[in-house]
């Protein structure tokens, strides 16, 4: 039995290696591509980039292809803000000298890496639990929620120059992320990443729907402004 398992494992890794050489090589230096997610804060502090082992459950393929060719910063203070701050005149500020830029890939590499990433879907079960109902939300209500009712702006930029800096920017979230992933992550961040800095705000189903819709509208608005 044990032998069968080992043979199966070897077969699997050989197949992954042949197809995803770049993932195994370059990407895995900074990204967790095998799982599981960090189980301790010390491991979380060390992270240089987001986990990719569930990339296929998280990202939009077309965004991956374009971002990998022209990567720009999504988290203003890096993956873990604590490693990228210094004390300034008015308090803590980002120490940009410590931030690393993501390498840019050719179109061909970006396309093949994105295709490999999209196969990595260990959390299909979590995604299947989410259903995004079509609907609209007024931009004004969404903004009120982000600011006053939920306080998302404490840690996230909700416009290019407005909001907190420790979390990933939100005004491009829906361009990057699948709607069911956004819903699932808002519902229970710790199920995806036990040491996530994102708190579980105990949102109702209705509010999760509204937030995902607002994120979708926000990203469209940001795209139109570009």
């Amino acid at each position, binding site marked *: 039995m044990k032998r069968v398992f080992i043979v199966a494992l070897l077969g699997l890794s050989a197949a992954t290696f042949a197809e995803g050489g770049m993932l195994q090589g370059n990407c895995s230096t900074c990204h967790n591509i095998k799982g599981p997610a960090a*189980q301790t*804060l010390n491991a979380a502090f060390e992270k240089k980039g987001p986990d990719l082992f569930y990339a296929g459950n998280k990202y939009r393929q077309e965004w991956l292809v374009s971002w990998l060719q022209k990567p720009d910063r999504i988290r203003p203070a890096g993956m873990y803000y604590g490693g990228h*701050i210094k004390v300034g005149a*008015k*308090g803590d500020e980002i120490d940009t000298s410590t931030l690393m830029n993501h390498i840019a890939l050719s179109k061909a590499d970006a396309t093949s890496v994105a295709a490999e990433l999209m196969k990595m879907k260990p959390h299909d079960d979590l995604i299947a639990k989410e259903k995004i109902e079509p609907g609209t939300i007024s931009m004004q209500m969404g903004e009120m929620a982000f600011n006053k009712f939920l306080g998302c702006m404490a840690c996230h930029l909700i416009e290019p120059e407005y909001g907190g800096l*420790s979390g990933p920017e939100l005004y491009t979230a829906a361009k990057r992320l699948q709607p069911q992933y956004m819903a699932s992550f808002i519902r229970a961040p710790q199920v995806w990443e036990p040491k996530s800095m994102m*708190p579980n*705000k105990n949102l109702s189903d209705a509010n999760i729907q509204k937030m995902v819709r607002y994120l979708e509208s926000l990203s469209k608005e940001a795209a139109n402004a570009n």
Partner: protein
Amino acid sequence: MPTKFFLLLLLAVSSVQAQAKETPADNYKAYCVQCHGSGGTGKGVNVRDMSVVPRDHTDAKSMSGRSDETLFKAIKEGGTSINKSILMPPWSATLSDEEINDLVQYLRMLCKCKFG
């Protein structure tokens, strides 16, 4: 059957506790510093656009006005649970009760103060 249900319930309740306990210094560094600042003075990297500035944890005067229970509640259930800002989120899914108690003691160390 009831035993099984009880065990399931116990598992659900203790899911946060199942994680290894972190030190209060690490938890503070991970979750509090982003707003309350690396010096604990309320000047974190996130505060620029906030309508309410985060509490200065080194301010003995204001910190001694809050009981340990109030601090525990604010961390666990968020700012609104003690009629304070929504910008302070609830950390109940992130931290175990034990870790929150440790953090309350950590805050007492930062303010060098007690309640009252």
